């Protein structure tokens, strides 16, 4: 009989399809694991409503469960509570930075967004604070595009939501 801890461990092997240095547990996409009567239920939540990776994530989870001979499973998607970058673990943030993606600031939901203020985002390569936003929307829905004014490298910033 498989335990919920084992399922969590198995799920930690599933990388995020768009940012493979982080797994789906660290991303906060897996919300819950329940086992009852031999049925394994995995509860996931999308980062963004239209995130094209969600389908891939679901399939990747199914694949890894089947590999571990777990046949009786159900993957359920929930919208509430809404995913927030606050759920991302510190390890995940560090991994992002190492890959060249500026991690999201801790205090989630950019209230500043409405007021049109732009956050100070540190360059993940040289740590400079003199950076500027090129576009609110970057290579994926969850990232904005910035440029460092010191090392001149463009970089992705993982937006707070």
């Amino acid at each position, binding site marked *: 009989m498989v335990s919920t801890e084992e399922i969590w461990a198995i799920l930690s092997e599933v990388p995020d399809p768009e940012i493979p240095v982080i797994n789906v547990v660290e991303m906060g996409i897996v919300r819950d694991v329940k086992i009852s009567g031999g049925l394994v239920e995995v509860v996931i939540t*999308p980062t*963004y*409503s*239209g995130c094209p990776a969600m389908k891939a994530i679901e399939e990747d989870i199914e694949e890894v469960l089947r590999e571990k001979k777990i046949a009786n499973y159900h993957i359920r998607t929930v919208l509430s509570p809404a995913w927030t970058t606050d759920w991302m673990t510190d390890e995940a943030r560090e991994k992002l930075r190492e890959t060249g993606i500026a991690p999201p600031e801790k205090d989630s939901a950019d209230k500043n*967004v*409405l007021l049109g203020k732009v956050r100070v985002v540190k360059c993940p390569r040289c740590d400079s604070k003199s950076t500027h936003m090129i576009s609110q929307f*970057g290579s994926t829905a969850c990232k904005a595009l910035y440029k460092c004014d010191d090392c001149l490298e463009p970089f992705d910033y993982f937006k707070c939501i």
Partner: protein
Amino acid sequence: MASDHLLHLADNALILGQRLAEWCGHGPVLEEDIALTNTALDYIGQATFLYKYAAESEGQGRDEDQLAFLRDAWDYKNSLIVELPNGDYAQTVTRQFLFSAWYYLYLRNLENSSDEFLRGFAEKSIKEVRYHLQHSSDWVKRLGDGTEESHRRMNDAIRELWPFTGEMFTSAEFEKAASEAGVAPQPELLLAEWRQIVETVFTEATLKMPEDGFMHLGGKVGKHTEYLGYILSDLQFLQRAYPNSKW
């Protein structure tokens, strides 16, 4: 029968998403191309959630794809403003701004809905719409307070789109029912705050608030402009040509 109220919200999201997706590969600069298609993705994702819920609550065995691909123009309940052509960039960002300001206020109220699904949906979507509103208002300011040419184009866009704004604040029967049941806000009550947002941004953009005049209605009851049929013929082509095909 799927709920007209859910279909209205889903159709708004799907049709605007489809319109924005038309910019894919045609954006004025690469960053904008990406911004609009990201926004389109958010809308199409939101539409999928809403159609799914509408189909489940209807309980007739339909799914989200059938609701999107197998209804005709007169079954669509979106507001007319979302189906209007993209026009130039001024028109696209103006439509986006006017709509996002309404949608933002609508979702903020929907977070208190008596319907559990809609509460969760609103909580999720408002995070995305906040970014759409900021992005589009930035462009309204940039173009309005830009060159003589961009200012003129913004004024043209506002003149073109303004008569389609009244519909967002005019309840259809299903909206009256939804607000009486505590499911959704009453659109009329959002108008004052919407005007404030629009006026603040327009002022900064050196643009004038237009006078309210004749307002087009009808989208919510299935009376659409001729543009919707063309959008659907694009959107639904595959399911019409190859019924029930899956991939």
